[in-house]
């Protein structure tokens, strides 16, 4: 178990989750010790692009999906009636639509002829990378296979693979949105850092994330990315929710350019490093219940 698990998330996509997650991980790995960065954005995992070198090993993520043995199926339709997800249809005999199967095991339990069993099906993979030249950093990537839909299962598999390392810090680069994929990534984290931007879209989606974080009972703080001097819109919203702003990253074309080519800003810009440096301490303080402010 890690000493401290920090989730980085946002409702809106493209606010800078990956930028903050990758750079913060490098920082904590250098200053605090073993850090595991988990790329939980399994539908569009990009953290690995910032660590192109190093040995990597992948293992499949499998989910048990119901399968009907046609010769034993009596076509009674009980499984179809029992399936809450509409995953079984009667086409002569029962047929399972694997994408819709959740797998809950109800059909297996109700089938009077024992014709249904659950068979592992690959939905994605977990890749473990030891970035070259970074002794204290591990990257665990969850990657959904193309055409598959079981994102939460892949995220859970990535998080449990991360659990095998005696990390001081685990950083969860979470998927956008507020649905099951986000929940799979945020649940059980010690603290949640919400990345936002001072636009109408950013604010709208931040509020949804604040609601989710509160429902999950995770202590939260906000990072304002692409900050505009004089803007108070994020501050007003954060005051309403009584959530602190722990850092502000000013709008900068240089940041965008460095990110675009896969560069790490903590290594290229001392100013950027200084902006991020206080964040881990502040987030740990949040877990301990201290009042923190940027």
């Amino acid at each position, binding site marked *: 178990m890690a000493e401290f698990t920090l989730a980085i998330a946002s409702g809106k996509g493209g606010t800078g989750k990956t930028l903050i997650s990758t750079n913060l991980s490098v920082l904590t790995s250098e200053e605090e010790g073993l850090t595991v960065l988990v790329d939980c954005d399994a*539908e*569009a995992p990009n953290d690995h692009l910032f660590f192109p070198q190093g040995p990597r090993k992948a293992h499949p993520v499998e989910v048990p999906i119901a399968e009907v043995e046609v010769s034993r199926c009596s076509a009674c339709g009980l499984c179809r009636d029992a399936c809450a997800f509409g995953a079984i249809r009667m086409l002569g005999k029962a047929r399972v639509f694997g994408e819709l199967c959740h797998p*809950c095991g109800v059909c297996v339990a109700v089938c009077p002829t024992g014709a249904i069993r659950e068979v592992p099906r690959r939905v994605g993979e977990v890749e473990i990378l030891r970035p070259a030249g970074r002794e204290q950093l591990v990257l665990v990537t969850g990657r959904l296979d193309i055409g598959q839909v079981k994102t939460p299962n892949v995220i859970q598999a990535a998080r449990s693979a991360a659990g095998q390392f005696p990390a001081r810090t685990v950083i969860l680069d979470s998927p956008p*949105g507020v649905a*099951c994929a986000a929940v799979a990534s945020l649940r059980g984290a010690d603290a949640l850092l919400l990345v936002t931007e001072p*636009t109408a*879209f950013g604010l709208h989606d931040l509020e949804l994330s604040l609601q989710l974080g509160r429902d999950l009972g995770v202590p939260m703080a906000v990072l304002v990315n692409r900050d505009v001097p004089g803007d108070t819109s994020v501050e007003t919203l954060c005051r309403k929710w009584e959530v602190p702003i722990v850092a502000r990253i000013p709008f900068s074309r240089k940041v*965008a350019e460095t990110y*675009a*080519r896969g560069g790490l800003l903590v290594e290229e810009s001392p100013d950027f490093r200084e902006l991020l440096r206080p964040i881990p301490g502040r987030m740990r303080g949040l877990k301990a219940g201290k009042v923190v402010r940027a």
Partner: protein
Amino acid sequence: MKSVAIASGKGGTGKTTLTAVLAWLASRELEVTLADADVEASNLPLALQVHSQTCTAFQGGGKARISEADCSGCGLCQEVCRFAAILSPHPGVFRVDSLSCEGCGHCVRVCPAGAIERTPTCIGEACLGQCRTGPIAFGQLGPGQDLSGRLVTEVRRLGLEAAQERGSQLLLIDGPPGTGCPLIAALASTDMVLAVTEPTLSGVHDLDRLVQVAERFGIPVRVVLNKADLAPEGARRLREICQRQDLPIWAEIPYDPAFAGTLQAMSADMQLQPQTDSVAWSAAAQVWKALARELDLPAKLATR
């Protein structure tokens, strides 16, 4: 009627901005209906001054609830639950964690005391409204709910219905980020995917994943390269990849924070005139022309 999904894989590449601008351009020439298929972070309605909207609660599959008075404390429910949704705060006491419960009903079936029932839950709402470009369907999933794909399907259905009623020639769908369930629900039976990408390593990587998903469903992909001048090397790679994969790039839009700011202006005043001197605007107009031509839309100004 033709339907086009604007998608990207990566978030924040400019899907909603482009959708809003295309809607504005299209609405001057034909009947267009919009659907915002990003039900986890629905932003298109924010950009387009929606009025007179009708929203209805969208029911999910339901959640289990244990009646404490009837529970015998046997724990069978916890044994069969695959989602770790039955918590036991004290020995012999069982409770449902509704954020984990997926509503499969397994516990309801096995409970010998009949103490568990599945109650329908509202997982969000689906809405149909009017904005200055015409009808717009959208929805919002409640934070923490699953089944976002089903709500996307409902929003698409509302959009299609409104488009048919109105006699729209075009349904524009603002897609969700990612390549999983919500995206696949948004793409279902569309005529074309307009992929908005950016020349970042992430943008290139996620475009590739999006194209693979679209191919799987046999939907043709056209590309718009946004923030094109941000990283010359990345842009060059994107052009190469698109050429190799036979993906036409319809326009390159320069990195212009003011273009994204267009939306703020649009939400304030839809009478806004296209800024013909802006490179970003003319690039968007170029996309609209190509779209009208390729889908054979009855757009006079565009094809002229």
